[in-house]
């Protein structure tokens, strides 16, 4: 099963990962990270294919993908 790990405190809140996930599995957190940003988080769904579309668009190299 594929999954991703988002480094919460690297996230600047651009949410490009959110719109680029083909299965809409990335959500926006309600709480703030160290930057005062509502970081993106992985919803943990088993629908993740590990396509890495989120990671390739992340300008902050904050997403690791496992397959």
């Amino acid at each position, binding site marked *: 099963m*594929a999954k991703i790990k988002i480094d919460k405190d*690297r996230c*600047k*809140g*651009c*949410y*490009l990962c*959110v*719109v*680029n996930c083909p299965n809409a599995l990335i959500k926006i957190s309600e709480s703030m990270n160290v930057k005062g*940003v509502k970081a993106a988080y992985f919803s943990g769904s088993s629908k993740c294919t*590990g*396509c*890495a*579309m*989120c*990671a*390739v*668009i*992340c*300008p*902050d*190299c904050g*997403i*690791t*993908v*496992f*397959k």
Partner: protein
Amino acid sequence: MKNTKKAVKKTGKISAGHSKDTAFESGLAFARPESLREAENHYCAGCGHGIIHRLICEVIDEFKIREKVIAVAPVGCAVIAYDYWDFDVAEAAHGRTPAVATGIKRVRPGSIVFTYQGDGDLAAIGTAEIIHTANRGENITVIFVNNGVYGMTGGQMAPTTLAGQKTSTTIHGRSLRREGYPLKVLEMLAVLPGTKYLERVSVHSSHEVLRAKRAIKKAFQMQIENKGFSMVEVLSMCPTYWGMPPIQAADRIKNEVSTFYPLGVIKSC
């Protein structure tokens, strides 16, 4: 992170989006390229520079040329790129980047030399240098980041700013009559016999990012094969000085910027 990288090399498992050479630990399908330092970048949220920095590092790792690379950084938002790249870097004066790269490459033809330049650096103050470096057919690679504004200095008009676009120095929008036309550098360079590979790409979506990487890889390939001057123009988001959220900025490239600056190979010999 370091431990995982070491572990990976042993397993040598290959995953999507990665070459055989930057292998990963079992199951790891995407991680930071080795040539990109751990340091968090200083760029604004949704800025394309971070993506482009990483793509260059991925390509360098895939070609295994990190120890042969000498980069020339510009003046502009990417002025401290040397804090992010884990290879030799010279920091040039504004716009003189290709001249510095020329000096380095001529002295060390065996090195892989690339410049990283913004639209102010390359298309305004450094116009003469880029044209003549291209025309001499210097065997270097140029990564040209076109986001249509001066970011570092506070969002002034760039030569590439679109007609009607509002900036801090075109407060009612760029007027073609007053400020002239946005400069299409690649099309201009394409007429020079010295240029061998010119492509325009974008980083506004994951799909385009993957295409951008292929273009950057091709540009480095050209240099490795001693084929001459190669340049990739990357349309990039500047949400801060476009005055819009990152997602909207990405859409702006798709719907507006890329219609004026068409994506694709401009020239390939």
